[in-house]
């Protein structure tokens, strides 16, 4: 097996991975960086982010406001030291992005413009029209080309982390164009592989968001934290699951039920003012909006569509000029995919799985419990998002914690002596052996697509916007069954060049592992908090559950769930207030 040595190995070249790589290159240009990604960096799913990235920059805003919005938005499950650090560093990061060329939208004066976003008391979301993530990703990717120490390994599928004696020494990855397995050895490893939304059937997440990194770290012994918190975004296009950004509502769009009524006023989010008021109505947080949809649907107030129940997103009153200027992609997507022009028509929408609040457990330095193993971006859980992420906080998170992961990985690399060669090589051989065995396996009747569908549907049914003990137990059973049958999957494609059958099969393995942690964590959390709503336990329970769920890998059975203290510094848990009482600024 070919061995590639680097000082820092970064798995994932989305926003977080690229930011980490640049941070390493800037901290110490002499360090060799190996940046691995299963897709070309600019294909990473950060490109899909539309709305923006929050950072305090305007005179009427304050770090304290951003802190409070984030902590209460996360239903107090956030670690407040992390949030504090985050709100303090994000603006600097966004300015750095500006210096690197990110085409932020501007005010007439030439300063960056900000827009309102859900759950934020004050307008503070920086944006680049409705393609913020796209511009950020390309800015980061193109800037990364400046640094000779960043050596990219594009289209390398990382299969396993190499962990020995409590420390991480690298990873194994398959070069997709040859099918050859390579061993990457590094002093520090940073995992930035993004989310796992693909475990659900209806999601805004791209094909690559299969939780590979989460599963890798999990198998290596790092707990996955708060996995039961899965964010539904209230406005996805039915059928495709394509996202219409929160910016639609930020700019003043309404959500209407089948009677053309702004139903959110019935869910403690009113009053229904004609122009948006922050933290009210359509600018409430995502969990509450998605839950309101579910309730409306139960009341029979939604519209039956071919792709399930829908409500209407009404942007007609915004006018063509504003829509073209601020929401051009939204217009394009709506016309193309649901034949509705937001300028003249109501656009059908429904909640759609969007973001994993949970992920690889890290501290505020992006370090996992395994020495030398760091993680940042959506695959990590620091946690600044708690039980519900506020829109526009995660693009910020990947910058702040991506950069931190890079810097702390450099610090750590300085302290590392060479790993125990023999053990590392033996583990790599093991990893290769597992892939080889997969190729040799034959006669199995299980199809990857079939298993994936069963897993997807059972999660949606039993572990969706609302859950209860029965639904979760059913899902647990289905996932266990899927897992058992997965061992019997055979490859139909035995070739080595760009064998996507192989990668989809490996991805399904990762997804099953993630799904397992989601349902098991959800089953044991007998309270309702943020995005985790139990029909059988409707209240928040701070006495027993003001803590993070920690799912540990158990090779022989269900994951072991443990708990971890939440860091509370200055904001004591209180009721989450939205609507009139929230005191949001007029947007």
């Amino acid at each position, binding site marked *: 097996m070919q061995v590639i040595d680097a000082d820092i190995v970064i798995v994932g070249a989305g926003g977080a991975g690229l930011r980490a790589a640049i941070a390493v290159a800037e901290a110490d240009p002499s360090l060799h960086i190996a940046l691995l990604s299963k897709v070309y960096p600019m294909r990473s799913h950060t490109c899909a982010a539309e709305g923006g990235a929050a950072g305090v920059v305007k005179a009427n805003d304050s770090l304290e406001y951003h802190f409070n919005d984030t902590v209460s938005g996360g239903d107090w499950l956030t670690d407040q030291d992390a949030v504090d650090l985050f709100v303090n560093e994000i603006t600097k990061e966004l300015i750095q992005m500006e210096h690197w060329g990110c085409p932020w939208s501007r005010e007439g004066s030439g300063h960056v413009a900000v827009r309102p976003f859900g759950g934020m008391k004050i307008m503070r979301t920086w944006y680049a029209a409705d393609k913020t993530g796209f511009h950020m990703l390309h800015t980061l990717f193109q800037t990364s080309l400046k640094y000779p120490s960043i050596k990219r390994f594009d289209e390398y599928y990382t299969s396993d982390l190499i962990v020995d004696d409590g420390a991480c020494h690298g990873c194994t990855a398959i070069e997709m*164009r*040859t*099918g*050859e397995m390579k061993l990457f050895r590094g002093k520090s490893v940073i995992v930035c592989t993004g989310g796992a939304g693909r475990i659900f059937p209806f999601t805004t997440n791209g094909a690559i968001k299969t939780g590979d990194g989460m599963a890798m770290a999990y198998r290596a012994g790092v707990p996955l934290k708060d996995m039961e918190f899965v964010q539904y975004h209230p406005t996805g296009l039915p059928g495709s699951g394509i996202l219409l950004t929160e910016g639609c509502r930020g700019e003043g769009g309404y959500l209407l039920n089948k009677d053309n009524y702004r139903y959110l006023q019935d869910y403690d989010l009113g009053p229904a003012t004609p122009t948006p008021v922050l933290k009210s109505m359509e600018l409430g947080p995502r969990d509450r909006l998605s839950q309101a949809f579910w309730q409306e649907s139960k009341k029979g107030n939604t519209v039956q569509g071919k792709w399930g129940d829908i409500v209407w997103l009404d942007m007609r009153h915004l006018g063509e000029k504003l829509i073209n200027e601020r929401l051009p992609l939204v217009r394009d997507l709506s016309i193309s995919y649901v034949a509705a022009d937001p300028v003249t028509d109501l656009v059908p929408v429904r909640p759609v799985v969007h973001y994993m609040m949970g992920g690889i457990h890290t501290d505020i330095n992006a370090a996992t419990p395994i020495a030398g193993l760091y993680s940042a971006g959506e695959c990590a859980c620091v946690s600044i998002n708690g039980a519900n992420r506020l829109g526009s906080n995660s693009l910020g998170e990947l910058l702040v914690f991506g950069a931190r992961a890079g810097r702390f990985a450099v610090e750590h690399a300085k302290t590392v002596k060479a790993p125990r060669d023999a053990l590392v090589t033996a583990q790599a051989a093991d990893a290769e052996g597992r892939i080889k065995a997969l190729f040799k396996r034959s006669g199995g009747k299980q199809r990857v697509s079939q298993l994936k569908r069963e897993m997807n549907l059972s999660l949606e049914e039993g572990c969706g916007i609302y859950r209860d003990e029965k639904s979760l137990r059913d899902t647990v059973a289905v996932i266990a069954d899927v897992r058992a049958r997965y061992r019997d999957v055979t490859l139909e494609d035995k*070739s*080595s*060049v760009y064998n996507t059958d192989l990668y989809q099969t490996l991805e399904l393995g990762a997804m099953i592992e993630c799904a397992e942690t989601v349902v098991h964590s959800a089953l044991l959390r007998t309270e309702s908090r943020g995005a985790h709503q139990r029909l059988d336990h409707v209240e928040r329970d701070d006495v027993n559950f003001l803590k993070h769920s920690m799912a540990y890998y158990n090779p022989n059975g269900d994951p072991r769930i443990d708990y971890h203290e939440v860091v509370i510094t200055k904001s004591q848990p209180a009721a989450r207030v939205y609507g009139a009482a929230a005191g949001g600024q007029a947007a």
Partner: protein
Amino acid sequence: MGARRPYMRTMSKTSWFMTHARFKTYMLHEISSVFVALYMWLLIDGLFRLAKGPEAWEAWLSFIKHPLVVVISLIAFAFFVIHTMSWFKAVPQAMRIQQGEHFVDGKLIIGGHYAALGAFSLFVLILAGVA
């Protein structure tokens, strides 16, 4: 390289333009240059004959009136029109005019070109007519 064997499909370097309507149109305006060259040649010849005297000029004029030349001229005219249209069409791409936050509408620029073309052509025709 291992099992890799990237396959490069060949492109005919001499007939590629027959593979797509778009390329045929492109080649048409490229070929207009042949007629431009011929016409320039004809004009230079005409100038020499004009200098030489009335007879030489008359010979040139009767050459122009030769049916074959007339046919070629008609074809050339078609190509010149193609050249003009494709050239005007490309102007807004090659030359964006920004006014504040907006670009002058390409249709306006193209329209302006056609107006100028019309005015100029009329001027020449009147000049030729009254002379």
